[in-house]
């Protein structure tokens, strides 16, 4: 079953830790993407 058992609703997430990183210049410039982080932890949760 290759379907993902979740949808990313980042508007509904309050994740102060991640939100903080998202604002930092060195993270933005490095290519950091919040949706990649969410996808990673949600995939691990629903694997």
């Amino acid at each position, binding site marked *: 079953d290759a379907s993902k058992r979740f949808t990313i609703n980042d508007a509904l997430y309050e994740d102060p830790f991640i939100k903080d990183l998202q604002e930092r210049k060195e993270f933005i410039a490095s290519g*950091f993407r919040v949706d990649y982080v969410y996808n990673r932890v949600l995939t691990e949760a629903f694997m």
Partner: protein
Amino acid sequence: EYTKEKKVGEGTYAVVYLGTKQSTGRSIAVKEIKSSAFKDGLDMSAIREVKYLQEIQHENVIELVDIFLASENLNLVLEFLPSDLEVIIKDKSILFTPADIKSWMLMTLRGVHHCHRNFILHRDLKPNNLLIAPDGQIKVADFGLARTVPSPHEILTSNVVTRWYRAPELLFGAKHYTSAIDVWSVGVIFAELMLRIPYLPGKSDIDQVEVTFRALGTPTDRDWPDVSSFPAYNKLQMYTPPSREELRRRFIAASENALDYLCGMLTMNPQKRWNTVQCLESEYFKEAPSPTEPSKIK
């Protein structure tokens, strides 16, 4: 079970032999890890190869057939892959078509996509790590620099990927990069397949910055927010990005979709750079010519 018949290569941390799996007669390659080479015990490259190849089973990733210890040496038994893309690019007597290139790109991206969806960064994609099986399948190999996608706060070393294939964020010393670095490497490999010469051959890490931005333009905060915050951003020569016309002239064999696909992978801003799914689903792979059947590539 495994013989070592012929030594075919030696690196800092391993010796590679050709051999045979006795029970099946299958040709294999044995990578013998030198235990003495690393004063801190088992070599990190060996640990990474073992760790990630154990988890990945995919047609376009080299197969780890077996692992065993023999006389204090760790031996990785890998599938035997007689050639690689670097050999093909360099050997001018070998002619290949845009359909062949498309096939190699498709297989490479499938292998890299499988790594990324397993949250594994390869971090050393280059033509001689894209091996070619007897049936024409491309196999991503050499996971000695691979690592899992980091936790958000983790700091990564930017000293990865062989220089010519190194993404601009790495050239700037980024510590929080993503799988976008692998896509950049695939983009440079694509350019090299079309040109049949290295596309961004920097002579040194400093020169690599110069060569990259002269070819593709120096990024600014407008197209790459906060790029100027990198310490290495100062003292840069400002080059304008090539026009579409210039790109057409540079890659004369490339269709419009092929150019879009190239530009998607070589997008400066890593946040905007295409990921492997966007690459695989791009028009380039849908338009004629369709990718050559791997076993039919000469």
